[in-house]
């Protein structure tokens, strides 16, 4: 039992580190947090908007 608790605690601490590791890398975790509250369809729709913007900027650069 003790061993199993230890394992859980270790896993939890590893997961806690996941947030800090993302922040340390420069990832805006609040944006991830906002995103996971959205539906799958909304995440895909917003990605499409971002992709369209990237395409437009790329084309403008080559004009």
């Amino acid at each position, binding site marked *: 039992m003790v061993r199993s608790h230890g394992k859980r605690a270790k896993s939890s601490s590893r997961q806690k580190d*996941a947030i800090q590791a993302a922040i340390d*890398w420069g990832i805006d*975790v609040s944006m*991830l*947090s906002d995103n996971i509250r959205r539906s*799958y369809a909304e995440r*895909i729709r917003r990605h499409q908007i971002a*992709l369209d913007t990237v395409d437009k900027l790329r084309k403008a650069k080559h004009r």
Partner: protein
Amino acid sequence: MSDFSKLLERLVAGGVDFVIVGGFAGVVHGCTYVTQDIDICCDFSPANLLRLQQALAELHPVHRMTPSRKKLALTEKTCKQLKNLYLDTDIGQLDCLSSIDGLGDYRKVKQASQLIDVEDMQLHALRLDALIESKKALSRPRDKEAILQLEAIRKLKSEKRSHPQQPAI
């Protein structure tokens, strides 16, 4: 201009058996980066690949890795020689893979997938844990940020499950 929703709609309408994997699966799970293509793992049986070809037919699919961008023209015989297909279409790039590092063949990938509702479609996408596993198996420096985002998302989701009605600060 790419339109990933329309590309996926075509595959679903065409009865193609596939699972969304790679960077776009990360987007489905909440990653904030922008990806230029859709990666799918699919059943590489001739019947399924011919359905895929039919589903994309009006989008002028070509093999984007060939110098002359050869038109996609699969036959039952040529399907049997394929392991991956790297395509470009009028509405975006589509990479079709027969297996995924760290997970295995299509059957195993499908077992590691979840069904998601996107408007009127039901799609199979790789589950978060399996996606992290597959990205780690590739050991590519360019996946580092994706893995960090996915692991942070896993943590945020587990916190949300533990405190489902936490008031906003």
